[in-house]
């Protein structure tokens, strides 16, 4: 039950036996996936895992430190471009990835500086400006390959001999996501993570207890940007190309939606939010008129309505309408997001059948 026998139990990774079992199952399943699935499922899982990394990073900033960012697509882009150009310059993939994360972190540190004086909507506008600037610079500057972006070198890292390129890439992405999960979770249980949360809840009390606001606010930006840059670096290989138009404001909003829908200030929430939004994104992106026709009962009417009022070929960007709706509903009914639903379910089953 809830009896604890030593202080270490509060720090322990898996506080209950069922949780350790389920996590073990999840790790085994993810590790076995390349042997079972073809390339497309691996691609989907990889896409989800990249978003998990970014959502974790963004949650450090938004959920735990209480700072807003509408410019995380900028860090994502910096990671993607940095890894591409470093790898093109001949650096092996792993060091290039790590360095790309660190470069993004350096920019995170810089963006953190205005955050020292700005809050809420003002900070939102500054980070928004950052994201748009990064996007524009990458898209226009010849040095970064202009509108087509730089060519991404082939992914040549071999983690398991005999595995295909896609399988190796999958393993790298999922392993990085697992390590990021562990790192962020641990960070939040120790001194630095506590300082982040303290700043969110009461920056005055935090500073009077000895937390250097300058250092920890910029640090939160840097840590957040590091993981986002790491995700961006993996994304470059995952997609096999770097297209500057991908890293737009909608992407920043999408990342933010993962954090909010999953659960602000929760590790599990970051994962859940990333999984749900990634799947929705993949499913909804390619919707055609024919897909609407197939819906039972209302399908024909709906398709006719959409055809008359929207685009003839289907509904471009319908996923954004869905996110918008989900965001509004989540804010109204479950401000803690999917994590809140999970907590309530757990509580229900703990006392079941009473």
């Amino acid at each position: 039950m809830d009896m604890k026998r030593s202080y270490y139990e509060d720090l322990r990774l898996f506080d209950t036996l069922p949780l350790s079992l389920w996590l073990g199952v999840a790790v085994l399943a993810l590790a076995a996936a390349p042997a079972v699935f073809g390339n497309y499922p691996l691609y989907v899982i990889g896409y989800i895992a990249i978003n998990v990394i970014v959502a974790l990073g963004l949650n450090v900033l938004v959920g735990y430190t209480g700072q807003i960012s509408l410019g995380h697509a900028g860090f994502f882009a910096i990671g993607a471009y940095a890894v591409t150009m470093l790898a093109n310059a001949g650096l092996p993939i792993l060091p290039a990835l790590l360095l790309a994360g660190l470069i993004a972190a350096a920019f995170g540190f810089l963006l953190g500086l205005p955050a020292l004086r700005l809050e809420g909507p003002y900070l939102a506008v500054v980070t928004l400006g950052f994201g748009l600037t990064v996007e524009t610079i990458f898209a226009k500057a010849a040095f970064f390959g202009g509108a087509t972006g730089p060519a991404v070198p082939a992914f040549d890292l071999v983690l398991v001999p005999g595995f295909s390129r896609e399988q190796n890439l999958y393993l790298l992405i999922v392993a990085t996501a697992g390590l990021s999960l562990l790192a962020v979770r641990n960070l939040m249980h120790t001194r630095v993570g506590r300082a982040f949360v303290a700043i969110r809840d009461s920056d005055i009390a935090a500073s009077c207890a000895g937390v250097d606001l300058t250092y920890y606010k910029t640090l939160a930006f840097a840590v957040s940007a590091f993981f986002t840059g790491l995700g961006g670096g993996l994304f470059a290989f995952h997609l096999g190309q770097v297209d500057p138009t991908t890293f737009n404001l909608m992407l920043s909003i999408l990342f933010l939606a993962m954090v909010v829908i999953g659960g602000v200030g929760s590790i599990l929430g970051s994962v859940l939010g990333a999984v749900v939004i990634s799947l929705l994104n993949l499913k909804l992106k390619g919707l055609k008129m024919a897909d609407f026709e197939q819906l039972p009962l209302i399908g024909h009417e709906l398709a006719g309505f959409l055809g008359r009022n929207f685009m003839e070929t289907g509904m471009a960007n319908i996923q954004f309408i869905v996110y918008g709706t989900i965001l509004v509903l989540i804010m109204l009914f479950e401000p803690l997001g999917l994590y809140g639903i999970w907590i309530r379910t757990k509580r229900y089953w703990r006392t079941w059948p009473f």
Partner: protein
Amino acid sequence: MSALLEIDQIGISFGGVKALLGVSLAVARGEVVALIGPNGAGKTTVFNCISGLYHPQQGRIVVDGREIQGLRPHRVAQLGIARTFQNIELFKHMSTVDNLLLGRHLHMRSGVLAGMALLGPYLPAAREELRHRTRVEEIIDFLDLQAVRGERVGNLPYGTQKVVELGRALAMEPRVLLLDEPAAGMNLEEKQDLRIWIQDIVALFGVAILLIEHDMQFVGDLAQRVVALNYGECIAAGTPAEVRAHPEVLKAYLGAEAVA
């Protein structure tokens, strides 16, 4: 006995409002000094000047021979000055234990990388956590907070939140403790507990305590000396009995007609 905390003629004004006009006071190790005065007299402003939230435009604040006016709050905290707040400033989404552990922030070292690498009980960050956790549990025992150890402090009753805030300040192992209306909103029993704790804190740790409080009974029981402020000026100083009977103090609280 030389004072541990010495405030010398500090003055601060906000725009045209002169909040403090040359306030002086001193607190020695093991001494409890109370700061009283009507609402708006500048008591909390004195605290904010000491803890570095405000920077006084005149005068000096000296802690153990070192001038601290103009330092930023976390630097002041490093010099061993802890405080509580009039309108509770707890980390309300954290548990009691985590609030107190944050109070240990200055005594801990582990940074980002060590924190991320926390895997087993033998790594440095985990060992440090456990060591400081032990200290925190001692304070939890001392302040009788065992029952709410893992509770989110935002859900705790007001009086208990005040005690948690005291605990967080104590976890910093301060040399000077600034308590801003610690007994406000507490019932009689809670006030008695608080009085005994404060007396114990002074006796056990030799802390210098500066206390803002309106309850004169409470002040009289605890403080060796009392300083009264009104409109940013010291109007009286002395033992609790002397200050309570001082004509200026009576005038400030009750009005000139009542005294005459």
